[in-house]
Every structure is written in C-alpha cells, then in structure tokens.
C-alpha cells in the first residue's frame, strides 16, 4: 500500500501525515507536489492540514485548482481513496468532492485541543478498524472548522449515513451542524474530517486512536 500526501505552499501537516501512513504495517508514503499533476501511481491520497495558498480568498478555494487536485478529482471519480484532514477537508469541499463547507468557528477563536469524536459509521474504507459508537481521542486545531450544509443537504447526509464522525458528549468545539466532525461522499471513497488523526498515532503524545483511520484505509485497499 502506497500513500501519497499532497504538499501545497502553506501546508504544515504533510510530514506528520507521511509519518502516520508509514506507521501502517506494510505501507509506505510519499509527498506529492501541488504543481505536479502526476499522482505517481499511489494507492490512496491524503490532502493534509495547513494553510494552502495562504488560505487567501476562502480556505481551500485556490488549492482546489492546483494541477495535483485536478488529478485527485479524476482519481476519486475512478474510485480512488481520498482522505482530507482539516485544510484538506476544506479543499475537498471546495473541489466539490465532499458536500458542504467549513465556516469560521462560532466563537471566533482558534481552537487547539484534544477532543473525543464518536464513530457514527464504522463500515467504510476509513473507519472499518473502529467499532460503531467508539470514541476516538484526536486533537483539533483550526479557526475555520464549523461544518455547514444547507438543511436539505444535511438531511440527505444523515439519511444516507454520510456522517462518519461526530464530536461527542456536547464537546462540539466550533458550532458544526449536527456535531459533525467528518463526512464522506455518496460513493464512500472520499472522506474529510476536521480533527487530526495524523497527530494521534503514538501513545507518547497521548493517543494513537488516529492510526485506525490509516490502517482502515490500508485494509480497504487489501
């Protein structure tokens, strides 16, 4: 299993994402440059956190049009597995690969803390190694993490089981609709979340719950 992790100008979590991927037994990872449309044959793509293109205009808005993203869009349309973390989630929403958008946190503050997220769907490529209802301890760190979808879209997401992770125990840190921390697309092969699983892969730093996202992806790949 070979992961590809995109590096945009302004990315800051791509190295942690590579290290997280490399913790999966039998997996390797490589960086993919934003200006290179070649995905170099990777089996799955991770769009990492950071501030791609300075987050100018709107978070993720400009990164969405980079050469590598045009290839990621085609990759996802062919069924390729794509994970977006934080800024990566924002980029995937802007690219139309995921429903909804991320808005500034309701209390206007940058938040950086460990949160518990509940696994609402444990059957798809990204959370198959979790149990339904399991709590994962993973950090969030963002200013623009309030998940928003218009009411009708939100109902559709809930009905179709596209809400994968929710902030647990009234711990919604940013005002996200329905406590949503992560959603997938209708086909199930694209997933975005605001918490950072790549920062929770070693008990030394408090939790290795995030590793389950990466091992799930490897198991889905087979």
């Amino acid at each position: 299993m070979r992961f590809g992790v995109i590096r945009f100008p302004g990315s800051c979590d791509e190295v942690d994402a590579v290290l997280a991927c490399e913790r999966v037994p039998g997996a390797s990872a490589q960086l993919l440059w934003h200006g290179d449309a070649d995905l170099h044959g990777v089996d799955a793509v991770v769009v990492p956190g950071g501030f791609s293109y300075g987050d100018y205009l709107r978070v993720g808005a400009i990164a969405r049009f980079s050469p590598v993203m045009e290839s990621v869009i085609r990759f996802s349309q062919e069924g390729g597995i794509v994970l977006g973390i934080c800024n990566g989630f924002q980029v995937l929403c802007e690219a139309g690969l995921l429903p909804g958008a991320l808005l500034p946190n309701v209390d206007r503050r940058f938040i950086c803390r460990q949160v518990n997220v509940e696994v609402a769907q444990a059957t798809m490529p990204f959370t198959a190694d979790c149990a339904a209802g399991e709590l994962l301890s993973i950090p969030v760190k963002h200013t623009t993490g309030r998940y928003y979808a218009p009411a009708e879209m939100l109902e559709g997401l809930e009905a179709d089981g596209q809400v994968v992770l929710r902030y647990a125990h009234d711990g919604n840190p940013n005002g996200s609709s329905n406590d949503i921390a992560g959603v997938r697309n209708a086909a199930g092969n694209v997933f975005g979340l605001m918490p950072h699983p790549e920062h929770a892969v070693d008990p030394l730093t408090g939790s290795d719950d995030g590793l389950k996202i990466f091992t799930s992806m490897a198991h889905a790949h087979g």
Partner: protein
Amino acid sequence: MTTRARVLIRPKAGILDPQGVAVEQALPALGFSGAANVHVGRLVELDIEDPSQLKSMCEKLLANPLIEDYEILDAS
C-alpha cells in the same frame, strides 16, 4: 482594452457570521449605539478584458455559492 469591475461577496443570509458579530459587539465599546445586523463581506476589484466572464468567475472561484451571495456591482 480593460474594464474596471467590482464584485461584492457576502455571507448568505441566515448563516451565522462571527466576524459581523465581533464588529457588532465592538461598536458599543466605542460609544456607537444602535448598530445591529452587522455583516462583513469582501470586495474584489479587478481590471477585466471581457466582463461577460465575471459571472462564471464568481461561481467558480470568487464566491462559494453554498455559503456566499455575490453581486457584480459595476463593470463599466
């Protein structure tokens, strides 16, 4: 030959705008009373050769139609 164009982009009505709330809360502290419903958007100014492209530009990049409304103010 280019035209000067301006595009105004606003948060959609009904979506909480924390930036607007922050400004609204700051005004009374400076002695300005009676200001309500403050919303903060952004203005994009550009020189453009073909103003008929503006709408498509807004839909694709300048605004996110899911969360923002845009208005092409003038393109004269």
